[in-house]
């Protein structure tokens, strides 16, 4: 930042609020490149994890920290054996097996079944998947919580996963449940107001000229303050080297005019890279298209520039509530309250000093 007191001047939205150009706020001159980011459209994600692999390969990210005695262990969370984002996982593909009693959701909708378009919640630009033979019962129960008996802890018969099982009249052993799959590739959000960056005491985290947030490994002293500062739980300290690590949005590739490794590797264009304003326009168009096709549960996450972090540089199109994907529904950058905290701490410090002075009141020597 150009002036340390700007942050508290009240005129600049350096800590919270709308901030159109975070790179300029960080001191780059106006000729800096446009802000870039990711638009991750989970409606076309096929869960192939090419992004995870490409990220690991390009950035030389080591093993996830699974210890030697328990290598390649399974989490039991569908096909997700990575768990979450971390110091050695900069892209993470979440798998949600949404299993629920068959028809329970449609009755909850008050018999609106015929009115629902046949696409139901089956998303996206993969029409070949369903064609005209989509399942008879639309699985539009996106917003209903999983029923107590229908959570995906038991075994799932693969036949029930076939989208047109019903249309073909196959008698599956378990006809009672609907299954849908949600897959989403999560990544650092490169927030407009990045708690990790503002809280870093060494200046190891910095804002790049592209408006992204990057850790300088040769500066980081492993204090770990960035870890609980992230409202999304992205950044973490790596056990093997003690430094904090997270997605750099392939800062090295950007400088050479290349797109990040994960976006390059994504076979379905679920991960789109580009200038943030163009991505936002593309996302708005995609959302309108999906809504027009009846996929009403589609929503953008991190797109709103008035949200608690001033909007995300990496934002998402989701098909369910954010928390289903492990994302906080209404994140707020922690520095929003920092000026008040400093005020309170200063006042209390004065109070403590005064109390200690007052303790000597009329206390003559005995």
């Amino acid at each position, binding site marked *: 930042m150009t002036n340390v007191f700007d942050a508290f001047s009240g005129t600049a939205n350096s800590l919270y609020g709308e901030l159109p150009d975070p790179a300029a706020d960080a001191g780059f001159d106006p000729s800096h490149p446009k802000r870039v980011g990711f638009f991750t459209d989970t409606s076309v994600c096929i869960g192939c994890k090419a992004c995870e692999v490409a990220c690991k390969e390009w950035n030389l990210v080591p093993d996830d920290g699974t210890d030697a005695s328990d290598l390649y262990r399974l989490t039991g969370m569908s096909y997700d054996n990575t768990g979450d984002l971390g110091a050695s996982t900069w892209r993470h593909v979440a798998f949600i097996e949404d299993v629920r009693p068959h028809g329970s959701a449609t009755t909850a909708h008050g018999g609106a079944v015929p009115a629902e378009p046949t696409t139901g919640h089956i998303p996206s630009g993969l029409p070949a998947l369903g064609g005209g033979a989509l399942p008879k019962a639309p699985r539009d129960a996106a917003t209903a919580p999983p029923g107590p008996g229908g959570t995906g802890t038991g075994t799932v018969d693969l036949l029930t996963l076939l989208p047109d099982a019903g249309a073909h009249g196959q008698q599956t052993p378990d006809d009672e449940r609907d299954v849908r799959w949600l897959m989403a590739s999560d990544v650092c959000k490169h927030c407009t107001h990045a708690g990790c960056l503002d809280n870093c005491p060494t200046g190891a985290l910095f804002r790049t000229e592209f408006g992204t947030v990057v850790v300088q490994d040769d500066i980081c002293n492993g204090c770990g303050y960035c870890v609980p500062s992230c409202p999304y739980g992205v950044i973490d300290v790596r056990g093997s080297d003690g430094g904090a690590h997270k997605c750099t949005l392939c800062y090295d590739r950007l400088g050479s005019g290349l797109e990040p490794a994960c976006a390059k590797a994504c076979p379905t264009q679920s991960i789109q890279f580009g200038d943030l304003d163009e991505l936002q326009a593309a996302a708005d168009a995609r959302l309108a298209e999906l809504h027009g096709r009846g996929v009403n549960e589609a929503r953008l996450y991190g797109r709103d520039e008035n949200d608690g972090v001033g909007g995300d540089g990496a934002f998402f199109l989701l098909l369910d*509530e954010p928390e289903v994907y492990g994302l906080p529904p209404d994140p707020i950058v922690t520095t929003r309250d920092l000026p008040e905290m400093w005020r309170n701490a200063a006042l209390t410090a004065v109070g403590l000093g005064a109390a200690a002075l007052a303790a000597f009141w009329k206390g003559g020597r005995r």
Partner: protein
Amino acid sequence: MTEDLNPTGMPERARIDHDAVKPRRDSPRGGRKGEQLQVPEAEFRSYYGRPIIKAPVWKNPDVPLYLFLGGLAGSSAVLAAMAGPTGRPSLRRAGRYAAVGGAMGGTVFLIHDLHRPSRFLHMLRVFKPTSPLSVGSWILSPFAAFATAAAGAEALAPYLRGRRGAKTLQVAGDAAGVGAAVVGPALATYTAVLISNTAVPTWHEAHRHLPVLFAGSAAAAGGGFGLVFSRVEDNEPAQRLAIAGAVVELVTEEKMTRDLGMLADVYDKGRAKTLMTASKACLVVGAAGAVVGRRKRWAAALSGLALMAGSALTRFGVFDAGIASANDPAHIVVPQRERIRRREEAVQAGTTPPDRHYVPAAGN
């Protein structure tokens, strides 16, 4: 490495204490809030019940001990600076040694807490008011310098008595003591900003209470130290400060858990509950002992020890509660959903949407 129990030595994902996360509120909330209705089990969805934010990787006991030592040193420095001019040499000596001990011990713990300790000087690379840890480093450094100078003068004084330079040494020690006393209270309370300026719900939403809680805790610790190590004819200010600190700490802790609503459940279970209960017991016993037993050397010392223990236990309890809060997805989802709901309600009613401030969840 076998004795290294710090969580980050383990695989990253093993830091999640699933036993602490999974069984949710199986016991009703504490009977001590008898008039309050039990908070209903919150409905929320999550990704396989996993934590949403990352729990701090700060080491235990390094960081809670640092919080305690910072408070002890900060309030002791003020006591020492006042004890000199008011003719209480034993309290001055105790305060100066507590200040330097706390500053040095705290620095050691802070450096040991780093995952790359050899780079501890990077803390002073920049001054960033947006980073409480940066500000804290710039508070701790001058404090440690002042406290060391004051304690050094105290330690050297007997050897220089009656010789040349004794007066200079005393003046220099007093001046350094005043410097430490000016910075000390900030050292005691900035740690509240340090932990509340995180995404950990139980810490962040207590950002109005934690500075007061920590100031009270610091006063109890510094006063307690003075009670233990000063003579009975000198210890009255320490007694007063310690009692006041204990009362503030007890009252603020109660108010904090009330205002936190559902987020206070981490204080009602597990190790945090044990620590906070022990802390309250120590503070009550110590304060009562300080009231009645100040003039007895042994009673004053025991009371002072209890007060210091209470102060330290509070720091450990608050630290543990924060870890549990960060690991609980309900602490993220439920209050944030409530916030969204209130905002939507306000928009529908045509009123000004409330700010995104925390609102205690239903039941309060």
